[in-house]
């Protein structure tokens, strides 16, 4: 566990530790509600401290860093674009993060419409009237950005928490 006093801390994949060695009995999985407990309590504390907009931005940034490291360490970036998307779909499903689907993909413009069902962050939440998958926005932006080498902007347009059954994201490269 990195020291909180170390203000220069930079995340490294190895910081996830050797879970197999560390949790020989409980293993790598845990209850989804525990994950959500962590995320939403953290969200409240940060929101209270920094305000709603700043809190959302921090979750997007953290998701982007996670997506980038996820891509570098777990994904095969040598695949063609459509194969890569299928690969991401398969990996997210295997890790029980969510069921990623591609609704549209313009391979020339790199513009995508993606949906995530049974999303780790929001599926089953009470309807709050707003989108909440800020971390997912960042995660997808980090994956796509690392694969393409371009910075991506991902915006959630439908969310379980906003009353939809699926979370829908529009992704496109950031305008230079």
């Amino acid at each position, binding site marked *: 566990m990195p020291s909180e006093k170390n203000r220069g801390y930079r995340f490294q994949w190895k910081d996830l530790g050797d879970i197999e060695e560390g949790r020989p009995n409980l293993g790598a999985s845990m209850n989804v509600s525990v994950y959500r407990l962590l995320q939403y309590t953290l969200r409240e504390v940060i929101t209270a401290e920094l305000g709603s907009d700043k809190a959302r931005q921090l979750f997007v940034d953290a998701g982007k860093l996670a997506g980038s490291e996820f891509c570098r360490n777990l994904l095969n970036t040598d695949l*063609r674009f*459509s*194969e890569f998307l*299928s*690969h991401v*779909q*398969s990996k997210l*499903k295997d890790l029980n993060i969510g*069921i990623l*689907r*591609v*609704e*549209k*993909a313009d391979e020339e413009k790199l513009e995508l*419409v993606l*949906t995530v*069902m049974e999303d780790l962050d929001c599926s089953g939440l009470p*309807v709050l*009237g707003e989108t909440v998958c800020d971390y997912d926005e960042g995660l997808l932006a980090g994956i796509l950005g690392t694969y393409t080498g371009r910075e991506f902007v991902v915006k959630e347009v*439908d969310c379980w928490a*906003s*009353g*939809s*059954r*699926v979370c*829908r994201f529009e992704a496109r490269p950031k305008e230079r």
Partner: protein
Amino acid sequence: MRSADRRLLRKLSEMMSALLEGELPTSTSRPTTRTKELLELSQSVDGLVESLRQANGFINALAAGNLDTEVPPRNFLVSPFKSLHSSLRHLTWQTEQIAKGHLTQQVDFLGDFSRVYNAMLESMREKKRVEEALHENERLLSNVFAGIRDGIIVIDKESTIVRANPAVADWYSDSTPLVGKKCYQALHNRSTPCEGCPCSIMFERGEPTQSIFPRTYKGSPIQWIDRHTFPLIDRDTGETHGAILYLRDVTERKNAEDQLMASLREKEVLMREIHHRVKNNFQVVSGIIALQAGYLEDAQWAALLKDTEARIRAMAYVYEKLYESDDLSNVNIREYLTNIILDIMAFYSERSTHISLSTDIEGVSLDVDTAVSLGLIITELITNSIRHAFVDRSEGKIVVRLQGTAPDEYELFTSDNGSGLPPDVELGGGRSLGLNLVLAFSKKIEATIQVERSGGTQITIKFRDTAAGAQA
């Protein structure tokens, strides 16, 4: 209850009835009631109608296959359809990827449809694997075809060219494209199959054929082509369904062979001429010696010259046989020795009329050097028998045999039933020139000699054909 509230309630009741009938009623349009609960009820019914209107439009569009339709936001009535909508849009994208050849897609969460669709995808992947393997084989075959500098043509059973490699296409650029033409059209500029077509022979016999044929097109550097025709056999059925023609440019080799053959023919003519002249010269020498002998009064000197003449005639016969033979370096030993023996018998006719002759000479071809030595040996031995064995005898018999005893090994046997060699006459003893010559020529061909003196004289000479030994 106020009349306005009553009208509103009636309106709301009609709206609910219409909904139950499957119709979408118009909204209450700004109700004027002052009753808070009634106003909230009115707003809820209007909201429900609007939600149903949106749901109706969305579901109808979905049913019509319009997947680009807008999803009504925050409409819980269509929640399951939103999932279906999302799945169908994703399936559409996946199908687009499949159409582009990206077969790594996998469909999930659509029940039986997913199972069937994924089975179809696996089938397509298997087909693609087979196609890629076939394509790879085809690519390899094409590269092999292109890489071989000799010509390769594949024809079907009707002699139609179905494939030709770049080398042969280059050779027959005046006939390209070769594929689709009959082989006799493309290779021989004929409208009908060739006489004795090697492909037809191959089809009939099922065995490869080989032939060399000329390339007649003017300006082509290739003049001669060596053609090997192999059957193209279906490995499954074992049937021949075509042929492979392997063509090699042998112009250089053929020209060299032709030059070699011409040179060989020229040498044969020269050799024949030389043999002819040598024979003639020997005959001239022989004639001169005969003339010379006629001038001698001393019978002993005349006899010596006659012996010499016989020896020269024996040598002349070799060159006569070589001149007459197709083989310019080997002599048929039966013809040669028989000729010599009969000539000697005739030459010494005054002494040989009462001598019977028995010959059994194998008809083998021997090297000219061996033949000359044998001719001179037999000349000496027969002459010796005629002149010395049967003096004062009314009859006699001479036997000559030559036979092979092992590959390239022979045995020459001569005998007479005359008085036999005198006890003091030995091979190499110096008393008899003839026997000394027999010994000398036997040594020349590395022969062994065995002499018997029981009831006449028997001489056995064993030798090897020196030329055959040298070749081995």
